[in-house]
């Protein structure tokens, strides 16, 4: 059993790591990481725009985004992938690689989820912050940019890392539209071997476990640090002893 696992890793580690890269598209673990990093990179600004739109005074801006966020949260990610698979080529008018379709889906999906976090961060700041900024001569946008968002976003860092973890887990769904990621590479290995499906998928599960576990660990460390910094130097000792609330990542 263990020797089987080692043999599979020895024979196929390159395929699992970068897919068929020099002779074909980049895939494997590298592609999973690139896809997740790009999604979170685009989803972050999108989530700020969504959150500002939902807090806006104009119903024309507020309502469509509110509906979009609720639909995104109430519908399976798989359904959203099917929608993008259908709509994105229609809109662009050309053949779009599955990587781009998956990226679009994840940006909308995680953007909607993160926008709730951003909105909560903005709402939780005291009203006086905005009033004081306006009194000092900032415009609404200026106050947002220089006073409100920096405070709200700093508190958001841990939940951005945990969203990154759930994005990594979400990229596995690209398997349905043949995005060449780690899961896809593992099923290719399985198709070549045919006799050891359990070993192959166990390796797959272990790789994801190591990846997500270490990132969750980092997120918890960062969260504790931010909690300590917010508590200030005087009560630092108290913050040290209070257990940090565990970050529960969004599924799947």
């Amino acid at each position: 059993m263990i020797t089987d696992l080692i043999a599979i890793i020895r024979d196929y580690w390159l395929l699992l790591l970068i897919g068929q890269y020099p002779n074909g598209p980049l895939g494997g673990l590298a592609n999973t990481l690139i896809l997740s990093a790009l999604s979170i990179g685009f989803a972050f600004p999108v989530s700020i725009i969504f959150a500002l739109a939902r807090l806006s005074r104009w119903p024309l801006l507020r309502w469509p985004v509110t509906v979009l966020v609720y639909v995104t949260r109430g519908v399976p990610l798989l359904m959203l992938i099917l929608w993008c698979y259908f709509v994105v080529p229609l809109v662009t008018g050309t053949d779009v690689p599955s990587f781009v379709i998956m990226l679009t889906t994840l940006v909308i999906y995680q953007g909607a989820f993160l926008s709730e976090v951003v909105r909560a961060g903005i709402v939780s700041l005291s009203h006086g912050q905005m009033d004081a900024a306006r009194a000092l001569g900032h415009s609404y946008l200026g106050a947002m940019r220089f006073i409100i968002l920096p405070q709200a976003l700093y508190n958001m860092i841990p939940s951005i890392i945990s969203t990154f973890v759930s994005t990594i887990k979400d990229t596995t769904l690209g398997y349905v539209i043949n995005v060449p990621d780690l899961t896809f590479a593992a099923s290719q290995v399985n198709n070549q071997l045919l006799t050891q499906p359990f070993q192959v998928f166990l390796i797959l599960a272990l790789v994801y476990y190591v990846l997500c576990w270490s990132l969750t660990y980092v997120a918890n460390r960062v969260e504790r640090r931010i909690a300590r910094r917010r508590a200030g130097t005087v009560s630092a000792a108290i913050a040290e002893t209070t257990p940090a609330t565990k970050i529960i990542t969004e599924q799947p």
Partner: protein
Amino acid sequence: MNGFDLSVILTNPEFMSMLAHGIEATFIIYVGSWSLAMSLAILLLGIRFSPLPFGNRLVAAYVSYHRNVPTLVQLMLWYFGIFTLMPDWLTGWLTSHNAEVIFAIIGLGLCQAAYFSEDLRSGLRAVSPGQMEAAQALGHGYLSAMRFVIMPQGVRNALPPLINHSVSLFKNSSLALVIGAPELTHAIKEIENLSFRTFEIYLIGTLIYLFISLLIMAGGAYLSMRANPAVGGRA
């Protein structure tokens, strides 16, 4: 492709029966995995609070595995991996009893149990230790204090995350598509292949999913209102 026309699908008895079967299978998977997850979560919680050596660490490992490995990979490991290792008589029995649905229930249920047990645990931890001392001072034993004093408060605390995770379990039931279970998303894709009415059938599917998700959320909101008389429900 012609213009938007929902009636092509809604008036076709074959498509409607496919949709109905899809909803039925999704319902079976959801109810089955939810019940499995909840009973397992309570069992895990019991092990965690019991004085068993290593019990705590065992449950922590279980939770850690199921939260850090993508649900889809867990399903694939069950259906493509563990299924093939089973003895022949079991494989035969499972194959003749809709193995895809059974493995979807097992995979989703085991995964969700980790989330449910963590929700319940943090709900219980939020109950102050003074409650237990007071209950025991009033003559309750450990179990009866748990049953009548600690649990009701703990479950009430745990309700919001439990409801959220119940909704995400419902959404995750669509993952069973990958191992070939004939659930709702599967039915939608099949109708799309037969009718070429992609937009219409996706719209119908989205509305069904949205409706059921909102129904679960509304049920949860009703429960929390009932459980928390101070906010407005009757005790």
